[in-house]
């Protein structure tokens, strides 16, 4: 059996296989300030009175927070009231952050869990061997009421990464390269699995980055088996027991030689439009964003700070740095990273999804171009429909901010 089949079987109560339609118990339901208001309205519309288990439902205001206007404030007010009334977990700003970084860091997601979130990047927790997937607000409302979700058990597509990594090649480059190879629907409705000697040496931060972008290849989730690195990450976090999830069967296997991979950039307007950074160094930019649920972790800011230390952001470029959670913001402060960014001429934002979706805190104007460590570069994603987003890792983003154009980190270090 595959990892996906094993986890889903344990939530159905009998052995199930790929392509079967099942009702499965969920361990955690998530919604944010875009999707929770819809889910809450659906919850009320279906006549539900009480959530199935308040300790298994998390509401995180993160997209338009700190609230950018009256409408977003009303949405979060609705979430806050629902959370109070139903006794579900709610993370206030200043104590929370971006949902997909926050939940695993708070120990709310563990290996073997089945997690549904009303946000497409819920697949991030697959890095902990949790079957985690995005659902619509209506499905989230159903799960909040009944503690169950309907699923078609996905087939499994395994990616084995081998070879020595070149300098400045990070989890982001591995996943961008993979999406570039298979396309935006290359893993449609499949559980992706990332493994091999390269993955077994990757930090949890890099693993989360990879799992986060499984959806950009159409993946249902992005799974990484449990090993010493996972166990070490969970040591200070897990408040429950969890199973050690090991590799099982796979329906398809693809091997990727990493020794040939240079830092990658996904060009407009698709995460699959991937090129090596060296082919793009002529492209001038207006803005750089380092943050998001893809690359907003402490390790990411350490990498960016290493490039930016003692340097200045190019006069024509705005650099926006967004630690994903309050804890990461604080740790970045204590390590002196925020001072490095500020001295370089960057603005350091409170945790928010903000510019990634063109929401606020760094929206692009007509014809403007950004390098971002985020996950999507569709038309108009970060603002004006004639603006452009190039997706890259934090080291490339930092180097580009200094150069005023897309740059390889080697050029500035």
């Amino acid at each position, binding site marked *: 059996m595959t990892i996906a089949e094993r986890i889903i079987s344990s939530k159905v109560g009998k052995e199930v296989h790929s392509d079967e339609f099942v009702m499965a118990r969920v361990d955690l339901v998530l919604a944010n300030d*875009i999707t929770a208001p819809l889910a809450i309205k659906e919850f009320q519309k279906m006549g539900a009175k009480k959530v199935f288990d308040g300790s298994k439902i998390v509401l995180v205001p993160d*997209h338009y927070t700190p609230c950018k206007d009256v409408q977003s404030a009303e*949405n979060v007010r609705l979430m806050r009231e629902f959370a109070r009334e139903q006794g579900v977990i709610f993370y206030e700003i200043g104590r929370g952050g971006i949902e997909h970084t926050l939940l695993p860091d708070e120990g709310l997601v563990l290996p073997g869990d089945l997690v549904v979130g009303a946000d497409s990047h819920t697949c991030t927790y697959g890095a902990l061997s949790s079957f985690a997937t*995005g659902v619509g607000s209506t499905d989230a409302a159903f799960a909040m009421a009944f503690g169950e979700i309907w699923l078609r058990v996905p087939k499994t597509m395994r990616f084995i990464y081998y070879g020595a990594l070149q300098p400045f090649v990070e989890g982001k480059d591995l996943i961008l390269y993979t999406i570039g190879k298979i396309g935006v629907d290359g893993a449609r409705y499949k559980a992706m699995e990332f493994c091999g000697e390269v993955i077994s040496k990757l930090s949890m931060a890099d693993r989360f980055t990879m799992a986060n972008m499984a959806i950009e290849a159409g993946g249902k989730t992005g799974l990484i088996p449990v090993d010493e690195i996972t166990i070490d990450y969970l040591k200070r976090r897990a408040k429950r027991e969890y199973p050690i999830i090991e590799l099982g069967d796979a329906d398809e296997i693809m091997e990727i030689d990493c020794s040939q991979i240079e830092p990658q950039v996904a060009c407009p307007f698709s995460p699959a439009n991937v090129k090596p950074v060296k082919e793009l160094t002529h492209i001038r930019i207006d803005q750089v964003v380092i943050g998001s649920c893809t690359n907003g972790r402490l390790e990411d800011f350490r990498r960016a700070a290493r490039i930016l230390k003692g340097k200045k952001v190019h006069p024509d470029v705005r650099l926006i740095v967004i630690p994903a959670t309050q804890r990461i913001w604080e740790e970045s402060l204590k390590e002196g990273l925020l001072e490095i960014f500020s001295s370089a001429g960057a603005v350091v934002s409170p945790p928010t999804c903000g510019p990634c979706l*063109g929401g606020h805190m760094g929206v692009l104007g007509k014809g403007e171009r950004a390098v971002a460590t985020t996950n999507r570069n*569709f038309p*108009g994603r970060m603002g004006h429909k004639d603006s452009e987003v190039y997706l890259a890792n934090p080291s490339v983003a930092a180097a580009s901010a200094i150069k005023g154009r897309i740059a390889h980190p080697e050029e500035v270090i």
Partner: protein
Amino acid sequence: MKIRGRAITVGDNIDTDQIIPAVYLTSTDPAELAKHCLEGYDEEFPSKIKEGDILVAGKTSAAVHPVSTLLGR
């Protein structure tokens, strides 16, 4: 079941940002969302369609906000 109407085709990979640009997602009202239906695909799209039209898309993905957007028309 037979459905008759003018068919409008939009091709593959019509992602959620094309169906309803994220900047409008502070609203949950289908009628309000519908004013920006497929604006990310074609800015003029909302003015090009009328009630009873049939939208034909290829391989794609959608969440609830996009569905509400389409229902609002």
